[in-house]
């Protein structure tokens, strides 16, 4: 939510995160190389560049699995959210490790010959070579890494950026093909296909579990069937104020529309879109901190009463008209333009005169 873009704005959490990423990469590579050269030594030694390419390639694949697992994990248990916070750095690191794998592999396998290594790599043989799948995946990861900065997110616009970043799934598919038609056709140990399969099942399972949970939540939220009260606006009853904890939100799914986050704060109710203007994080899973809705992913802030970020920031999200009748919360399903002020609906005191 910057007005000015810096390459990286460091803070303690990011540093610890990157330390773990870098430490993990170094530990993995070191152990792979050490074990690989101890197990196969002497006249059975594996050439070092090949061992290195294998260490880098498996490392990048493992990292991609982790990067893909973090999102659903954080939806299932929000204590994983700090891992989402700096996921961009994990993605960039994954690209860099994958790129190093490609440089070593292409340099060694396609270098030293009568063709330029890249020409040799790209000369089409009779069948699509496995290297091309890896190259495709790497190209996608490169574009993602290069555009991961908020500057690009802003320049490309939310939905183009989102689609670009959903292409991480085709990249994953390409990498599976790359391994399937390359390494797995050369290696004989069953461990490799088993590990690849377990990774695939785990990722698919996590995504399905998250998807199903979200579906269930979307379908179940309205206690009474969405009763449309006949008033000047087609108000929708989204539940009772008592369902919403103080400073937190209830997420409401309205058919055919973006989800709405209905926040309770300072004895009032405000409704805004559930979609963060940054990277579409789920605002309804955020919290009101210091009077601002704070996104659970990277902490962008919006005032509940008008959907605007506090100055000097200029981000805006859509708001919804809202009112409270008795203990029921009614919202207008049609969003107002981003940044439109809406007076929070007052919650009437619970204890009316008991008489």
């Amino acid at each position, binding site marked *: 939510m910057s007005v000015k873009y810096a390459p990286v704005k460091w803070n303690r959490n990011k540093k610890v995160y990157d330390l*773990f990423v870098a430490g993990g990469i170094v530990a993995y*590579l070191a152990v792979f190389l050490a*074990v690989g050269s101890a197990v196969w030594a002497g006249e059975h030694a594996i050439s070092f560049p090949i*061992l290195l390419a294998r260490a880098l390639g498996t490392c990048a694949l*493992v990292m991609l699995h982790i990067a893909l697992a973090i999102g659903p994990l954080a939806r299932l248990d929000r204590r994983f959210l700090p891992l989402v916070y700096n996921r961009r750095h994990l993605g960039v690191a994954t690209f860099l490790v994958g790129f190093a794998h490609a440089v070593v592999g292409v340099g060694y396998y396609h270098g030293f010959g009568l063709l330029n290594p890249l020409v*040799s790599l790209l000369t089409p*043989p*009779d069948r699509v070579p496995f290297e091309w799948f890896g190259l495709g995946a790497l190209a996608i990861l490169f574009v993602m890494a290069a555009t991961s900065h908020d500057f690009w997110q802003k320049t490309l616009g939310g939905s183009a950026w989102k689609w670009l970043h959903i292409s991480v799934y085709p990249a994953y598919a390409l990498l599976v093909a790359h391994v399937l038609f390359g390494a797995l056709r050369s290696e004989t140990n069953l461990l490799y296909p088993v590990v690849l399969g377990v990774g695939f099942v785990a990722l698919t399972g996590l995504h399905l579990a998250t998807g199903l949970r979200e579906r269930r939540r979307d379908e179940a939220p309205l206690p009474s069937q969405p009763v449309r009260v006949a008033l000047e606006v087609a108000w929708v009853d989204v539940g009772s104020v008592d369902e919403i904890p103080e400073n937190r939100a209830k997420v409401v799914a309205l058919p055919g529309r973006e989800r709405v986050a209905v926040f309770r704060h300072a004895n009032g109710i405000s409704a805004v879109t559930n979609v963060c203007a940054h990277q579409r994080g789920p605002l309804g899973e955020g919290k009101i901190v210091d009077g601002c809705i*704070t996104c659970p992913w990277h902490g962008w802030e919006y005032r509940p009463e008008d959907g605007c970020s506090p100055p000097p920031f200029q981000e805006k999200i859509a708001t919804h008209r809202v009112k409270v009748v008795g203990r029921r919360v009614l919202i207008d399903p049609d969003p107002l333009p981003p940044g439109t002020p809406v007076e929070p609906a007052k919650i009437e005191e619970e204890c009316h005169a008991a008489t």
Partner: protein
Amino acid sequence: MPQPEVDRDPFFIGWLKMPRAYARFLAPVTFALVAALTIGGAVLAWAQRSPGPGTWDDAATTFTGIVYTEPYAMIRVPPVEPGGAPRTVLLVEEGKFGAKERARAHDGQPVRVSGTLIARDSRLMLELAAGEDGLRAAELPEAEQAALRRTPPRGHGPVTLRGEIVDSKCYLGAMKPGGGRTHKGCAVLCLKGGVPPLFAARDSGTLYLLTNARGRPLDPSLFDRVGDDVRLEGVSEDWDDLPVLKVSSR
């Protein structure tokens, strides 16, 4: 009183200190993850296939013998022990290139070659050093020359064999492993550069030198099949100590 509200509903914001509940959960999770990955890396490294027994010497080796350039550059050199049979050593250049061009002027003549020795089991190859040092004409008494000359091939008739076409330089020890699907791009480049093709027969493990049906260099249309599991039909022969498969079909 500490703020009870913070404890009841902790919320992580990137630029603030991580709430204790998150840190207490994530610290063991991330440490366990890094530990698991490290162990995983060890297991993946351990499970790699053996690259085979090839070696590539650091020190230079020198031979004197009779050089031939058809179908590929090779030299016939004296046996290790007196009374043994002469040995055939395939010749290649540095990088992914055959040595036919350099040897051509000396075809059938005595030469002295020097370079680094690549060897797998009893199959030998020399990567020639650059310049005159690598290959130059040599004097050899007529009797020794006669002992080193090729003898007529001994034929074993038609065969159909299953196995893998490989480039000799990598497979014999320049790159390890020097075969298989991941190595295919490299092997194609080697064969295009004139490195002699070999055929690693699956059942017998025999390494055949591959030629076309007339004993000339292998048809380049077969280069694309290198690294694959293929079946080759042809005629098997022994050229002295060198098993040869003269391929008649793909």
